């Protein structure tokens, strides 16, 4: 006889799940991360390719690429951050609502990449706190998806309930 019990039996336990609040909150958050694509340069093309049909980012619930920072959770900095653009990136990061995460996609966003010159900021972590760094020039869409999965793991371990009571420290430097 095929068992049709999934996880738990509603008739026995009722429609009540007992777990940690952290587990539920993090589970909800990590499966619907809405990225804000800060697509600056060539990595933006691989970002768009990962949103297209072949490397469907929609499988992870992340196809909602909102260009408004107020509606997004995660800022994917894809491309070279120049000093002229740095203040714009920071302002947009400030406008995002908590909880928020930043993914530095590609070599240029992580450390300045191959552009060691007077105009390029050597890594976006000089100006925003970064959660996941992706290497590659540009990283393949599979690498971006792998990074988003790592971000999901990271979100899964966050002390969300603790953060609800006191605000997250803003950019400790």
């Amino acid at each position, binding site marked *: 006889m095929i068992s049709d019990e999934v996880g738990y039996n509603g008739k026995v336990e009722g429609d009540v799940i007992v777990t940690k609040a952290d587990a539920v909150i993090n589970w909800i958050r990590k499966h619907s991360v809405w990225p804000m694509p800060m697509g600056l340069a060539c990595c933006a093309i691989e970002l768009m390719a990962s949103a297209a049909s072949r490397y469907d980012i929609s499988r992870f619930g992340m196809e909602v690429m909102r260009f408004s920072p107020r509606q997004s959770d995660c800022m994917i900095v894809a491309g070279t951050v120049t000093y002229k653009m*740095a203040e714009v990136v920071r302002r947009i990061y400030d406008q995002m609502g908590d909880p928020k995460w930043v993914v530095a996609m590609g070599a240029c966003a992580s450390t300045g990449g191959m552009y060691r010159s007077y105009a390029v900021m050597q890594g976006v972590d000089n100006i925003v706190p970064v959660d996941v760094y992706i290497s590659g020039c540009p990283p393949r869409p599979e690498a971006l998806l792998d990074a988003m999965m790592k971000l999901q793991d990271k979100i899964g371990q966050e002390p969300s309930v603790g953060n609800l009571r006191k605000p997250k420290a803003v950019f400790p430097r």
Partner: protein
Amino acid sequence: MIDDDFTKALLDKNSFLSKRESIDCLTLDCPADQLAGTTLSLRDEEGFELLVDLTAIDHGEDAELRFSVVLHFYSLIHRGYLRLHAPCLDNENPSITSISAVYPAANWHERETYDMFGIVFTGHPDLKRILMWDEYPYFPLRKEFPLAGIETPLPAADVVEVTKASVEPAPMMGGPFVSSSDGVMSDTEPRARDESWTEESEKPS
């Protein structure tokens, strides 16, 4: 066709132009004060309607005439290019007439040349920086400006307050490693072009 007859006719009409040796297209030297008139005649009489490129070269701090502006024109009728070299007379504060009234395409090109070299184009409607931010104090493509950059404050004050970031010189780690153009092999071996400093050790002064 841009052949010898055309060149001869052009040089006869404008005696202040002189021909320069070049491998790919007709290249002429033009004195700075005749630039506006020459470009006007090129557009109206000779059929060079398209200004393809306007840029400058820095010949080094020791050169007699340090900056020269280089213009490229294309003619649809003759199907050919023409290059014009016009040196700036002053080495400390280089300036030359703007040709944006004759060729509107020159507007942005001249802004970029001012941004990168510091050459002032007199008569330009709105000469301000285009690629770097407005308050940037240096001219990056001059030969004495290092590739890594010079420390300057970031343009946005509120961002600097929160993040304490500034425009820092890029860590060259002793590189870029390129060789000089001539000399014996021990001289042309790749050496650290820039002064060697890294994120750990300071630049030796």
